[in-house]
């Protein structure tokens, strides 16, 4: 087993256990791991961004290939930094204007096309199919997303939810029934979302526990066993010290 793998296993196990210690209660060990996570993540992003953007996409092409045109986006980007100089801060508006204008221009038509027009087109599906000269067919299969029954359910769902968010008329009588139907569809949607969220969070727990089981192997030096004992011991000592020290009253 390579040395760096063993070190990696010990670091990963230790940090996992420190984070898990929060399940017992908030404590300095958890805080240490939390701050390390934030620091390492930000540090990594800064280094990778500097290396990719400044070194590989700006400096090298300009110096080695003479791509002078790159100085234009660099200049626009530099204008952002003028926000730190109050007298020149107005210049940063040009950079923001460029970003907002370009971003909106790129995003609006594509988003309208992809999320509004395409979804409206998919919602308004034929509720019945014509099959040659025999007449019409209606498929009742709930498990088939393209069935006619599902097309009707989607139509009812979309209409009732839209009506629920239509506040210009009072939700009474028939309107109340439609709004209630909308709430029902919303609840089902929230339930599905919550179910998937639980599944996702459990997957994360499974991922960490799988690693802890793997790192309890002798080839890694059993970091799971030793570091679990160390974490529990540290929590015990911290709890005892907390009991011995009188609360700080101001």
């Amino acid at each position, binding site marked *: 087993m390579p040395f760096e793998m063993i070190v990696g296993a010990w670091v990963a196990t230790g940090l996992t256990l420190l984070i898990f210690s929060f399940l*017992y209660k908030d404590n300095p060990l958890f805080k240490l791991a939390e701050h390390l996570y934030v620091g390492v993540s930000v540090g990594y992003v800064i280094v990778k961004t500097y290396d*990719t953007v400044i070194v590989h996409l700006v400096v090298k092409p300009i110096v080695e290939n003479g791509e002078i045109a790159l100085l234009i986006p660099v200049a626009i980007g530099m204008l952002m930094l003028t926000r730190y100089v109050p007298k020149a801060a107005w210049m940063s508006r040009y950079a923001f204007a460029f970003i907002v204008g370009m971003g909106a221009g790129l995003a609006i038509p594509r988003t309208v096309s992809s999320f509004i027009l395409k979804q409206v087109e*998919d919602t308004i599906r034929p509720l019945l199919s014509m099959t040659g000269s025999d007449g019409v067919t209606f498929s009742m299969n709930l498990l088939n997303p393209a069935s006619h029954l599902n097309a009707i359910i989607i139509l009812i769902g979309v209409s009732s939810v839209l009506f629920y968010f239509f506040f210009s008329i009072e939700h009474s009588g028939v309107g109340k029934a439609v709004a209630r139907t909308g709430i029902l569809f919303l609840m089902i949607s929230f339930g599905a979302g919550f179910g998937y969220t639980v599944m996702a969070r459990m997957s994360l727990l499974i991922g960490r526990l799988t690693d802890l089981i793997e790192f309890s192997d002798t080839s890694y030096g059993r970091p799971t066993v030793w570091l679990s004992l160390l974490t529990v011991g540290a929590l015990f000592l911290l709890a005892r010290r907390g009991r011995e020290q009188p609360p700080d009253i101001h």
Partner: protein
Amino acid sequence: MWMAGMTFSEKMLKIDRRIIFLMIGLCTLLPLLYPVGLPIKTSSEVRGVYDHIESLPEGSVFLLSIDFDPASKPELYPQAIALLRHAFKKNLRVITMTLWVSGTGMADQLVTQVAKEMGKENGTDYTFLGWSPGGQAVIINMGQDLYSAYPSDYRGKPTKELPILEGVRSLKDVGYMVSLGAGRPGVEEWYVFGKDKYKFEMGGGCTGVMAPGLYPLLRSGQINGLIGGLRGAAEYENLIGKKGKAVAGMDAQSATHLAIIALVIMCNLFYFSLRQQRG
């Protein structure tokens, strides 16, 4: 905290949350240590991705965008491994990249590990282009000219010199594309700024949290398949016949789901029983 005179329902509703954590922990740990091997049924959305890759002729260009970072590793890493194994097995030309700067190192390690396992050579059979800034702008740039978005690969080799990219000028030359996304930019951006504009076939993979939001794209045919969370990864592992960490985690997933369902039912029973007692 429990107090004298409390009814059983009251005690249960005020139970120490750490007992629940312990229960969930045990429900996860025990099936991982002693797997039962519950059956895994393949859903049509996962099969959509598998079937499309299966239908690609040898040498087709397969683009995998690894749009996640280590925070979503347990769900998306097994998906990426399964997809790469399938693509390498089919002898596709595999182009990989990431739109997430925080996932660059992990993505490189992942691609290199699977390629080594499958005996594939960097630059000839596959390439990892790395990360380029801009998110959706990178996708548009790749649609116009791949070499302008990525002048060099992750190892600094000029992309124009890579044999694997022979005949590939832009996204229009991609046979199939899958984005494994844990947020933005991810599957939606690849559809909006990639597929919808440059007309290539694409599928998606995502975390469980994101899956309900992507089903409308699947139903309308905007993406032809969706691998959702660890469950989706397990289904894909089953399809390629190479069981990995996702399949191993399915027993634990089922056990924790059962525990949570039982807790929700019990909590409701105690709540209504308490309400009845109070009149």
